[in-house]
């Protein structure tokens, strides 16, 4: 079996989480890599939808931006940005939303706006919301991909950019958010899922070679752990080579 990094593990685990044929609202970065890996392995019929208005894109190289030319030329349809949000995302037509995070709390609320200080004079100014608040609210379900460490897994996020389960059970219903919300948080250490009763993120899976203590130390709150924690199979050779090819296509495109 080939060499791989924790990020590879995270990407492969995220790709595996995608059923073939679902429609997927894809952000750039790790989500895009995972989605395109899934297309090249077990989910060739994944419908990739980008906020740039591309519906059904079939990129042959890994795009750097959510608006690369090949996303448009390989799309079934390219629509305006108002249309992609109003006619496509808003009615809940898109089954899965893929999000990243700079900070995430135990209820999977996400911050991608500011860290530290106050909003007007933050320690770190992050990019902001983009499509995330509505993806988190309106997609059928959401999968979050984020590296697990004390900087990102916080008791409280500094700013709620996108809502997960708010302050717990019933929050999404009270807010009138139609989507199910985050069903999986996939990290470089394993997978967390919301507890069916408390909505609190619970470690249900660890990547092979990771022990639960690592996960606890990497979490800024007292991490809830499932009674039986499964182990993520390591990336198969097929998955790894598909991932390498994919990353090579981006380097090639950049060269």
């Amino acid at each position: 079996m080939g060499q791989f990094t924790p990020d590879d593990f995270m990407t492969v685990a995220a790709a595996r989480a995608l059923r073939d044929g679902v429609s997927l609202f894809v952000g750039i970065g790790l989500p895009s890599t995972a989605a395109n890996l899934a297309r090249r392995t077990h989910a060739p019929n994944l419908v990739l939808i980008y906020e740039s208005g591309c519906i059904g894109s079939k990129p042959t190289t890994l795009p750097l931006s959510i608006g690369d030319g090949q996303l448009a030329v390989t799309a079934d349809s390219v629509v305006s940005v108002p249309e992609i949000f109003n006619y496509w995302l808003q009615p809940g037509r898109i089954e899965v939303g893929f999000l990243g995070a700079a900070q995430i709390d135990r209820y999977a609320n996400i911050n991608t706006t500011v860290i530290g200080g106050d909003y007007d004079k933050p320690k770190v100014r992050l990019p902001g919301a983009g499509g995330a608040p509505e993806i988190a609210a309106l997609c059928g379900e959401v999968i979050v991909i984020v590296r697990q460490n004390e900087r990102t897994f916080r008791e409280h996020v500094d700013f709620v950019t996108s809502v997960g389960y708010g302050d717990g059970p019933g929050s999404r219903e009270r807010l009138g958010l139609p989507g199910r919300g985050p069903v999986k948080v996939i990290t470089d250490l394993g997978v967390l899922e919301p507890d069916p009763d408390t909505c609190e993120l619970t470690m249900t899976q660890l990547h092979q070679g990771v022990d639960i203590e690592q996960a606890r130390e990497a979490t800024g709150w007292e991490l809830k752990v499932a009674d039986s924690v499964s182990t993520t199979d390591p990336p198969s050779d097929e998955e790894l080579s598909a991932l390498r090819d994919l990353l090579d296509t981006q380097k090639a495109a950049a060269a």
Partner: protein
Amino acid sequence: MAELLSLSDAVEKVIADGDSVAFEGFTHLIPFAAAHEVIRQRRRDLTVIRLTPDVIFDQLIGAGCVRKLVFSWGGNPGVGSLHRFRDAVENDWPAPLELEEHSHAGMANRFAAGASNLPFAVLRGYVGTDLPGRTPSIKTITCPFTGEELTAVEALNPDVGVIHAQRADRDGNVQLWGIVGVQKETVLASSRSLVTVEEIVDELEPLPGAIVLPHWTVTCVAEAPKGAHPSYAQGYYDRDNEAYRAWDPIARDRDRFQQWLDEEIYGSVHA
């Protein structure tokens, strides 16, 4: 009928200090050449508007043209931070930067409302987030039929809308295709508009998915070949992803950025 002008005359004509200016183009067709001319002409106190500030606004902000930013996602796509944007927000360099922050869905609807001459748009958005508490142009509204509460965002009607397109004819009819973002809405929502184009042609032949803006909706058109670089113009050139990566070290350092300004902008006059 739209006026055909040189880029410098066009910027001179439509953009004044203190104006609110939308520079649209969603990843594709970003009007870099027009923004560089704005820097060259040393416009000040602008309110600049776009969904994705991107490198184009990192440059305008760093150059000191901007007083206020209206936006929804301020990163260097696939690369990382916009360091000039961060330096302005975090350290007030070169000047304090006022923010009006939205989501993409909200910004897109604000442009659509502006293009429709409506004072607001309705959407399902922002609910439960901290954004409405920071952004006065987000409010709630109640459906007069169902009583359901939804979100309203204030329309955007910039003083000037700037976009880049593939082609225009000599009357100033503009044709663009590929990812069209909110470019049509930007021109229709703005009091004045400047469209830079890859080329001016005698005849616009129809193309798959092409949008046409009739000459009577455009204030002026300026020919600016490669005017979207390092973003791209479908059918003309690809996105220069390397240039986006190369921007990171330049923008990280105030001196290197200043040097970039001197060499690439003030030193050079756009053809």
